């Protein structure tokens, strides 16, 4: 029995090696015999005099039956095998489709506050107006995502599965914000390495259940990560960050900022974004994470004033 197996192996080896060598020479025709392979390797190249002699032979009649009665390459061009190629070039996301705009995050002395509005845009169309872009991950972490909504939802699936698998060992171990942030950043960086990015900018906010130490970190579709007392994605990086940095320039400012002040600060920034970011929404979700866990809520921009618009032509109803 063993001998049979062994000799079969050698037999296969003898068989496959020469043919694979031929295939290597020849990539235009996939269903031909060894001898015709050789002909076409030559006739499809336009380099040597030798091959042209062969080509002329094939027009009349030659020793290669494969060519007999076939359309002449010099008249009709080489046979187009491209339809035989099973795989098409792989295409990847080249642009986001349905998108969420900014996410804001601010550290304060006992924790972090994070906020994102509920709009999902399709280009300039406010396509969905009740989308949750904040996801609680475990007891002390909230992940907020801007960018492509379907990629965000896929990421939510990954995080959900991550938590379930974390549950399997039935021990006291838990994932907190630093671990969640690292996980997301690894996923995003690996996807950019495959040229198939998850089109998101993501804030991970959390607090240490023992020390209260606030955690806030950013990661985007290229795997770029950074951390700061206040962070914002998208338009928020341009419109909200200057305001936020006025109040929380550094970690020392963080340790002096109360939760109430942090909340007010975020409200103010969300209002600025509502005024100036055309892709933003009037309703937003917020979450506060302290050592005691996560509190979430929803809010609408209050005390709006569009008085400035009266002076601007094209802004709302006015007499021309």
């Amino acid at each position, binding site marked *: 029995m063993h001998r049979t197996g062994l000799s079969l192996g050698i037999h296969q080896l003898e068989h496959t090696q020469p043919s694979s060598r031929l295939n290597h020479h020849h990539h235009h025709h996939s269903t031909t015999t060894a001898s015709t392979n050789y002909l076409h390797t030559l006739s499809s190249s336009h380099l040597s005099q030798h091959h042209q002699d062969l080509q002329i032979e094939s027009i009349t009649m030659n020793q290669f039956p494969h060519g007999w009665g076939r359309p002449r390459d010099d008249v009709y061009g*080489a046979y*187009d095998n491209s339809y035989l190629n099973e795989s098409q070039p792989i295409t990847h996301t*080249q*642009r986001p489709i349905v998108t969420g705009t900014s996410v804001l995050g601010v550290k304060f002395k006992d924790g972090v506050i994070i906020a994102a509005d509920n709009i999902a845009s399709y280009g300039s169309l406010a396509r969905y107006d009740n989308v949750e872009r904040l996801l609680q991950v475990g007891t002390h972490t909230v992940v907020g995502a801007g960018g492509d909504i379907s990629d965000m939802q896929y990421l939510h699936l990954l995080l959900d599965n991550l938590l379930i698998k974390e549950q399997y060992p039935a021990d006291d171990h838990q994932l907190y914000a630093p671990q969640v942030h690292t996980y997301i950043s690894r996923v995003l960086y690996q996807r950019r*390495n495959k*040229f198939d990015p998850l089109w998101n900018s993501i804030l991970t906010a959390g607090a240490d259940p023992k020390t209260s130490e606030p955690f806030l970190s950013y990661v985007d579709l*290229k795997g*770029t990560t950074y951390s*700061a007392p206040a962070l914002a994605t998208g338009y928020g990086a341009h419109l909200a960050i200057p305001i936020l940095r006025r109040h929380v320039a*550094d970690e020392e400012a963080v340790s002096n900022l109360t939760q109430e002040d942090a909340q007010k600060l975020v409200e103010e920034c969300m209002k600025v974004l509502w005024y100036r970011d055309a892709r933003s929404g009037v309703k937003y979700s917020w979450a506060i994470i302290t050592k005691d866990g996560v509190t979430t809520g929803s809010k609408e921009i209050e005390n709006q004033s569009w008085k400035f618009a009266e002076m601007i032509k094209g802004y709302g109803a006015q007499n021309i």
Partner: protein
Amino acid sequence: MASSYLLPHSQPNVHPTTASQPRQHHWSPYTENGGCILGIAGKDYVIIAGDTRSSEGYSINTRTARKVYDIGSGLILGVVGMSADGEELVRKVARKIDDYKRNHDKHITVAAAAVMLSRILYQKRFFPYYCQPLLGGLDEEGVGAIYSYDYVGSFEREQSRAYGAAASLITPFLDNQINFKNQFVPGSNGEEPRPKVDLSKEQVEKIVKDAFTSAVERHIEVGDGLQLVTIVKGVRAEGEEEDEDEREKTAGGGVISEVMSDLKKD
């Protein structure tokens, strides 16, 4: 032309137009996060310093990003360019240095680590890490060594090197202050070059700080904070007994320390 269906090659070449094809937005996996690093090797020390600003375009992402890392076995690595690639590179090198120690039961030498880093960069020759690394350590004689690299692994040991956004501003300053280029012996009428001397660590630290404060003035991507990482040969405090294990800690016997200071934030 009915036969054209059968004759794909005889068709005129039709270029996709914006009207017939969806516009292909070309996505780049790369980005540039600014910042600057500077490495200087001395007779018995090495310094790698970096600013702590990380930016993208005209936005400052954070003012507190470190660019110089302790990668184990008494070696340090500074990286500028795309921070995501840089951090990945640091993780990989640190991991391999750890592997080396476990496999061979000894610390890697800075020369061997230098080759290893080159190989890591070259392995990604066709999708390079978009970052410029500076490797620092003490060699087996305890002499400071800086190794500089290009994106794909070409490398050399140098006395000093500046990389990153303000490299072009700092390099000539270094030429002048470290290598005494264009300095002459007073009274020699510009004939006799000032002879090279080994600068002390304290002197070099001053030069590094000057280099960065100047770069901050002239380059928008540099600023916020200065991270200064040094390796010096482990020295016993007076009265302290010699601890063989401690002295043999790394190939060059180096001890790493870090000092943070402020740079202008505007």
